[in-house]
């Protein structure tokens, strides 16, 4: 009897431990509250060097991660950001940043090509990339999962794709990640409201 009770206690303990571990694990993926310090050196679609987030301090940032070669999801994220941008009553003090996690291919010229193809207005939208290790650190900080996928496509594997998170972030003027939304399905009215609220913060 005593032995059974001990077993039950152990099982309950393990179950609690498991739940806590799971909670911590999930919690660990939530970047909200994280302060982006850096500064992370990046290049823009104009070929200019910037320090992120230092050079954008004081502005409310809409931040998404993408790659130019992405034909379906990243353009959807870009379109959703554009919808949000166009729905903002005032874009003063707001900046949309799209950071490429494919720096090997995404030269300033290709970033510019993407911005032009998808009608992303300047200077509101800044497309960025940087050294692989810098970009990797940033994606990890934001909890964005990026995995290069070997492709089954017909060019003998010369091109590659990424499996990646579908996310959009709201970062405040201090560089603190305030919210994470789905990138392709971000609720436009809600994001606009959140941006307005951050803009009105002292």
């Amino acid at each position, binding site marked *: 009897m005593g032995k059974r009770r001990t077993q039950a206690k152990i099982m309950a303990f393990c179950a609690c431990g498991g739940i806590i571990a799971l909670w911590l694990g999930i919690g660990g993926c939530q970047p909200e509250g994280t302060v982006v310090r850096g500064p992370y050196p990046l290049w823009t679609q104009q070929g200019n060097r910037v320090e992120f987030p230092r050079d954008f301090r004081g502005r409310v940032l809409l931040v998404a991660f993408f790659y130019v070669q992405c034909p379906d999801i990243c353009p*959807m994220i870009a379109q959703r950001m554009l919808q949000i941008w166009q729905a903002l009553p005032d874009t003063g003090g707001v900046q949309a940043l799209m950071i490429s996690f494919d720096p090997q291919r995404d030269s300033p010229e290709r970033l510019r090509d993407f911005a032009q193809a998808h009608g992303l207005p300047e200077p509101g939208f800044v497309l960025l990339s940087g050294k692989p290790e810098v970009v990797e650190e940033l994606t990890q900080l934001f909890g964005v999962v990026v995995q290069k996928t070997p492709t089954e496509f017909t*060019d003998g594997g010369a091109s590659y794709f990424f499996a990646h998170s579908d996310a959009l972030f709201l970062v405040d003027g201090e560089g603190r990640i305030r919210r994470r939304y789905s990138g392709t399905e971000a609720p436009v009215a809600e994001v606009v409201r959140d941006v307005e609220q951050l803009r009105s913060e002292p």
Partner: protein
Amino acid sequence: MRSWSAVLLCVGIIVGASWAVQASVQLKGFWARPAGKAIPSAAYGVIVNTGAKADTLLEAASPQAGRVELHETVRDTTGRMQMRKVRQIVVPAQDSIVLRPGGLHIMLYDLTQALRPGDTVQLRLRFAQAGWQQVACPVGRPPRPERPLQKERHEHQH
């Protein structure tokens, strides 16, 4: 001699009728994403099968793209988005298949030139029954705000 003519006529009618039934795929609302020369584009639209038999989309081609492939974007259990190649897409009889952002789509690689809003992409789709069908895809933004990803009813093989 007359009986042979009757047989031939019957065969002709049957073949003609079945051909008419088979060529019953309609391509509606097709459009393609703007793209730079080095950036792939994707085409979307609705394939309607008004026939009494299922048909299967086997391949696609375009004079404006070096490679054209059938793909599907899928969301895995962790919320990650991934693309995979689709070998064929079955369009059931009296039914339709929607190619849409975040779902099934036709990928256009190695474009001969950049695609800007206002341009048109000529797309050819080969069906098992209906053969090659052509559709002009205006290049532009999605016709309406892109909808959340929903599970479309479709059957296809990877």
